[in-house]
């Protein structure tokens, strides 16, 4: 049995190395909710399900299994904050749980990387699923210090819900879990065109075919701007990066200034649970500098 109320905190790449504020917020939220986050020493890239899986699926699987092994040794479930990491780790974990022959093969190669053996003992979780399903909109109310009077454009991203028969979290066509959750924080979720399409970052195209990636993002931004939200809300640092860098790109190359701030679900939740605004990292966002948070304080009910 893995231990309760403790998680191995899987950082990945983009969150710690580009958006430390998301990491900070996640730690804050989890601690306030009474969870202990344990550091996963020597964890590496998940590795990314789009780009690195494309070169060698087997190595991709081995590298992912290595990360999971680190959490297995700690005897706790693993939690991630990124869709990409979740996509890789959850899928590999599931496949290695189900397929013994594959597990053997992977373990063979794992030996070359150090003292690692995949034992199939833990689960992989996404923080967004933990918040919106396990804790849920009702219970989170009890932990709120303030609500936020704001509107948002929610971006689920792809790998959080799809492939749905592997993830089994919510419908990929009409999901509602995040809408229900942010409503509990006082935030109104806006419906916009092509809401569930990809941000255009994944699959290695952001790196190699930036033009296409930016075109997809631009259409997305167009639809988002049509409903004029206060901010964009995502559950993945890579989408986060895409929305941020995409707006910069539009500004630089086409002189289009959307200036819509981007938040990860952890950041907003942490703020509503009382984290100091300065840790949200708004100050580092080109698009967020002008944004004023409009909190409504709530009575703490201990």
């Amino acid at each position, binding site marked *: 049995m893995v231990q309760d109320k403790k998680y191995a905190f899987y*950082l990945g*790449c*983009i969150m*710690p*190395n*580009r958006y*430390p*504020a998301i*990491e*900070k917020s996640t730690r804050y939220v989890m601690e306030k909710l009474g969870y202990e986050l344990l*550091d*996963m*020493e*020597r*964890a*590496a*890239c998940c*590795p*990314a*399900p*789009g*780009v*690195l*899986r*494309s*070169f*060698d*699926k087997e*190595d991709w699987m*081995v*590298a992912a299994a290595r990360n999971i092994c680190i959490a297995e040794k700690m005897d706790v479930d693993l939690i991630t904050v990124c869709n990409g990491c979740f996509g890789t780790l959850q899928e590999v974990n599931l496949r290695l749980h189900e397929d013994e022959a594959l597990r053997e093969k992977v373990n063979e*190669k794992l030996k*070359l*990387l*150090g003292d690692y053996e995949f034992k199939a003992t833990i689960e992989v979780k996404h923080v967004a699923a933990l918040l919106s399903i396990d804790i849920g909109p009702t219970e989170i109310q009890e932990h709120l210090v303030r609500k936020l009077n704001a509107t948002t454009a929610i971006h689920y991203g*792809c*790998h959080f819900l*799809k*492939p*749905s028969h592997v993830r089994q979290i919510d419908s*990929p*066509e009409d999901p509602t879990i995040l809408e229900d959750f942010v409503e509990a924080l006082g935030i109104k979720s806006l419906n916009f065109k092509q809401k569930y*399409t*990809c941000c*255009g*970052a*994944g*699959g*290695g*195209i952001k*790196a*190699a*075919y930036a033009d*296409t*990636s930016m*075109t*997809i993002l631009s259409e997305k931004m167009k639809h988002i701007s049509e409903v004029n939200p206060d901010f964009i809300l995502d559950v993945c640092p890579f989408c986060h990066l895409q929305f941020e860098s995409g707006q910069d790109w539009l500004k630089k190359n086409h002189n289009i200034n959307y200036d819509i701030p981007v938040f990860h679900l952890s950041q907003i939740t942490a703020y509503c649970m009382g984290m100091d605004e300065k*840790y949200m*990292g708004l100050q*580092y966002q080109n698009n967020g500098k002008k944004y004023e948070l409009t909190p409504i304080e709530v009575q703490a009910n201990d």
Partner: protein
Amino acid sequence: MTSNTKSESINDFLKEKKKYVDISEFDSHFFDDIERRSKILTCIQCGTCSASCESGRWTALKTRIIIRKLILGDLSVLKDPDIWLCTTCYNCYERCPRDVRPTDVIIELRNYASKLGNIHPVHRKVVDYLKATGHAVPINDKIKQMRKELDMEEIPPTLYKFKDEENSDLTRYAKELFNLVPPKGEKEENKDTNKDKEKKA
């Protein structure tokens, strides 16, 4: 080849012009294991995948066409840059009425293409980062500063932090994983690594 007969030369000339595609040049067994995994042969060319594809709306990527070519055994798809335009968004995968799982097919194809050395230079760089730091997106000074300002550990406790240990995990990681086949130009090495791979398999 200086001793070409006339008929040979005219054939060469006409072949370049290519009136018909000669289907016997295709290798319909090359993708047998893709077939095993995703049963592409049952695709009905309905276009649900290509209509679902956000990337395909802007580019020449048509999953449907890729699958069509695969069924015929047209290996040109391996050199086709289109297969690298998929964002792995899984829309097609979710909606295909025949359960073909086009996203998996594309990943599989990319694996094959990689084995032939068909990898974008930028992607090679990503792998270089990974091997040097354990991260596809490594940390930099600006972020270190940012982390300090946020009252966080300057360097997160990931592989990178332990890179200087003796016989470090990172060295082994870099040695064992993602050894890409070099680009076409470096033919000699290319062959060697291929052989290595074969031996391993």
